[in-house]
């Protein structure tokens, strides 16, 4: 078991976003979390990345280590969890190249960095064409590619993806998911959060359904796809 989350609760001021959820992700898996707007999907990922403080009593472990002992930047460098945040959040004032290099900030292995960079360009040739363009002037899709590329540069044990398909053209979306699949086959465990529930479930092996801060369903993707409630609520009938 790679990631184990128990009784995870998070609040923003008075708003309770997560009410003590429990789930797990195994090594090499692709797991997706689906849910409506504001269900708490992004919050879950932020909690794992330690970007938001969690309520007392929450427990999270990664490869047997207590995740709560690590500050946000060490979750990346020491545990190897990368995160593609919602809305991309690129450093728009830096160039594409600088964004990628920055993601490898704490890494010392020059050779590996170089190899990873090549892989990013293999997956997203468009980025290579725009190396010295400021990230802020990329189109939506290009930005999403860069966001994933950046995550690949920072850590590869596990990748948290927050709505990577948002705003992507159909073809690109296909490409992206293919790329993610490749990444997964090369050993990166993936936890995916998506609005586009159908596609997410088709892509993942297992899924969880999050509803107003509570996990209400869990199961194999196929089961969920066939579940009538899920179909009604998230797949558009």
């Amino acid at each position, binding site marked *: 078991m790679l990631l184990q989350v128990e009784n995870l609760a998070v609040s923003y001021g008075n708003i309770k976003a997560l009410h003590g959820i429990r789930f797990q992700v195994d090594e090499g898996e692709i797991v997706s979390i689906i849910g409506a707007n504001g269900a708490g999907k992004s919050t879950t990922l932020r909690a794992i990345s330690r970007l938001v403080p969690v309520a007392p009593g929450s427990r999270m472990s990664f490869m047997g280590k207590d995740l709560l002992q690590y500050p946000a930047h060490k979750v990346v460098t020491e545990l190897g969890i990368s995160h593609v945040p919602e809305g991309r959040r690129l450093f728009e004032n830096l160039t594409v190249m600088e964004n990628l290099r920055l993601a490898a900030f704490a890494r010392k292995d020059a050779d590996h960095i170089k190899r990873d960079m090549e892989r990013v360009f293999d997956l997203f040739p468009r980025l290579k064409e725009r190396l010295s363009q400021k990230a802020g002037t990329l189109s939506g899709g290009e930005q999403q590619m860069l966001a994933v590329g950046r995550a690949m540069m920072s850590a590869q044990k596990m990748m948290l993806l927050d709505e990577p398909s948002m705003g992507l*053209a*159909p*073809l690109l979306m296909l490409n992206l998911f293919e790329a993610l699949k490749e990444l997964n086959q090369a050993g990166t465990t993936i936890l995916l959060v998506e609005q586009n529930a159908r*596609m997410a479930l088709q892509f993942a092996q297992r899924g969880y359904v999050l509803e107003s801060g509570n996990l209400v369903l869990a199961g194999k993707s196929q089961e969920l796809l066939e579940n009538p409630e899920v179909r009604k609520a*998230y797949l*558009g009938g």
Partner: protein
Amino acid sequence: MPLLEVRNMTHFFGGLRAVYNYNVTIEPGQIRGLIGPNGAGKSTVFNLITGIYTPTEGDILLEGQPIQGLRPDQISSRGLGRTFQNLRLWRHMTVLEHVMLARYSKLDYGLVGAFFGTAKRNREEARTRQIAMDLLKMMGIADQADQVVTNLPYGTQRRVELARALATAPRLLLLDEPTAGMNPGEALQMMEIIRQVHRELGLAIFLIEHRMKVVMDLCEIIQTLNFGEVIAEGTPEEIRNHPEVIDAYLGKEVLF
């Protein structure tokens, strides 16, 4: 006379050719779609039409009148409403204030009224409030009128954007990815709203979308853009089967 006519519009960002020789004609009451790969220049087309950028070359005519070079507020006052790809709401303002403010150019009182709270101003404000509330009812968010927008769910925020754009009393509405970030169920609701708006207000609509179901179901005519140039234009059926579009944009297998 067509409602909007764009002729040979070209735009460069530095050395990058974002839009090249773009033409479009929109008739009153038409629903049109604009698709294309990421970075094709779709949003740029919208930004050019609405005056956020000034085209390097070309003419934009609204009901025969050239509007290129005008400021965005002048263009929008002439009946061109829009929403943004990334929500651009005013984070400290309430839903109602958003919609009321979009009536800015239609307000019939001046600074004196604003300073001294004249009777005319009070009448105008009441009337504007009524119009705004009607729009909010139409969007189904009237009960959230006094909420500050930052606290609202994403889907609601999208509706606020739409209501705000409608409050400018447009004859042509530009929608940049209205269902982005919604799950399929919510997207269906949004489509319903767009249809209703189109029906009840009789607007022309020009929309950008990546969700094929939305484009194909809503639009009468679809344009496809690639590298800033139109590569195909036609009915949904024609576009779906257009080889170049499939190549550049749709892909062979459709996931959903």
